[in-house]
């Protein structure tokens, strides 16, 4: 029993690390631009499709596939940013969100129509046997996911607190008018933050696809839902919150799958979100991006 719990916790952390990566991308855009980008997942899906194509067409190695996933997602993200967010910079946040929903549908239809088969194989990250220790089992892919997520957290923190770009981002979040008056170009900050978030999405999409060894058009919706859910659990707009929300979502899913079966797994996650939104504890309403 104890071993099962420990195993579930380990699986949940690996799952949660993927959610945390997705939530970080969402939170960067939400925290800095004050906009929800529903097309985040679909852009990731396109990036991953581009990578499977690269794998089939030129038998690219994993490093190259990672580069293609990231580049593809950033490219798709740039398309979304130009169409949904650049025109609504001063306008309504709802308009931008609805526009990003329209692009979600557009990108998903594009994937469904342009690709004759829906399911494409994605090269495995690792083909060997899983790690065994203390009676627990950990897939190497899961271990990589946890390590990469931790690395991304450290790198983001360093960038935010120890670089000129990070200074501009924090200034834009704290007070956009004062940031403009200090000589910081808000559109410039927004575009670069969007690019960083898209690159993170591409990284997450690559790891997720290489773990599942396949890509389907569902990856888009899946990424948007999981990332959004994790961001909301962590209290909208805080980066540490996004990580905690992602891990919490992973743990809740892993444990409820064990105790209640896979059918109830997602239901329980949404129930948790509902309860938290209904109760609105204090940490959920904090709004800083640091």
């Amino acid at each position, binding site marked *: 029993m104890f071993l099962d719990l420990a195993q579930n916790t380990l699986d949940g952390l690996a799952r949660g690390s993927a959610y945390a990566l997705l939530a970080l991308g969402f939170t960067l855009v939400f925290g800095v631009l004050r906009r929800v980008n529903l097309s985040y997942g679909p852009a990731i899906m396109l990036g991953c499709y581009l990578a499977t194509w690269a794998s089939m067409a030129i038998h690219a190695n994993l490093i190259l596939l990672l580069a293609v996933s990231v580049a593809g997602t950033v490219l798709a993200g740039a398309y979304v940013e130009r169409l949904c967010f650049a025109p609504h910079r001063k306008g309504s946040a709802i308009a931008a969100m609805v526009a990003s929903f329209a692009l979600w549908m557009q990108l998903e239809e594009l994937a469904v129509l342009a690709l004759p088969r829906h399911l494409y194989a994605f090269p495995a990250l690792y083909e060997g046997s899983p790690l065994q220790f203390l009676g627990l089992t950990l897939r190497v892919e899961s271990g990589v996911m946890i390590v990469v997520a931790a690395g991304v957290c450290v790198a983001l923190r360093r960038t935010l607190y120890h670089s*000129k770009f990070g*200074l*501009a981002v*924090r*200034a834009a979040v*704290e*007070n956009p*008018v*004062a*940031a*403009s*008056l*200090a*000589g*910081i*170009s*808000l*559109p*410039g900050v927004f575009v670069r933050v969007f690019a960083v978030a898209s690159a993170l999405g591409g990284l997450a999409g690559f790891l997720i696809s290489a773990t599942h060894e396949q890509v389907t058009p569902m990856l888009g919706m899946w990424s948007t839902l999981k990332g959004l859910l994790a961001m909301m659990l962590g209290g909208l707009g805080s980066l540490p919150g996004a990580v905690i929300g992602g891990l919490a979502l992973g743990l809740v899913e892993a444990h409820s799958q064990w105790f209640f079966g896979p059918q109830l797994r997602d239901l329980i996650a949404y129930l948790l979100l509902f309860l938290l939104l209904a109760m609105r504890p204090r940490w959920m309403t904090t709004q*800083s991006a*640091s």
Partner: protein
Amino acid sequence: MSALLEVKDLVTAYGKIEALRGVSLEVAEGSITCLLGPNGAGKTTLMMTVAGILRAKKGLISFSGKSIASLQPHAIVASGIALVPENRLVFPGMTVIENLRAGAYQRRDDLAGDIERLLGRFPRLKERSEQLAGTLSGGEQQMLVVARALMSRPRLLLMDEPSLGLAPLVVEEIFRIIAELHRDGVSIFLVEQNAHMALKVAQHFYLIEQGRVTFSGDPGSLAEDEVIRRAYLGSAKQ
């Protein structure tokens, strides 16, 4: 002295309401020019329009001969204008040093020397250089915003009510700093409610009422109590 900043027939509107209804004025190179007027006259609107935060509907703004009316705020900072906004807009969650570094965002050169020099000028900021700006007192925050604006090495410093809500001793200090900056060669365009203090440092002043300039002259050219009356209450004729 030539005009460093020239504003001509400037109209800025919030929706259909015109806050500036054709304002024309000049700030001479090397001068302290002061803008006085009652609340709601359009002083802050003028400052925000020159800084590029608000867009003019009509009119010209030129800075050392070049039109800046269509530039983005960060490009206006790069051209040599810095605004010390009303209400002390510090970055509360960032340290004093980080606030200063943000003010120099457009610059590519080394900042250490300038930060050291400014902290020397504002000793109270030096003591608190690693503290978060949100924990500073009102006067210290005002000093920080002035110092942050100076980090961009402006040729023209716009100051919007720098003494508002501050204790008399701090107000004295702010005006001492304004005089010092002026001696260092920075041109200053100052919006003030404190007409008495402003007229002591300014070489030229404008009165603005209901979105229009109603008087322009040297500090001696209108009796001070008349200036103060119109600056606070507006002229009865309107």
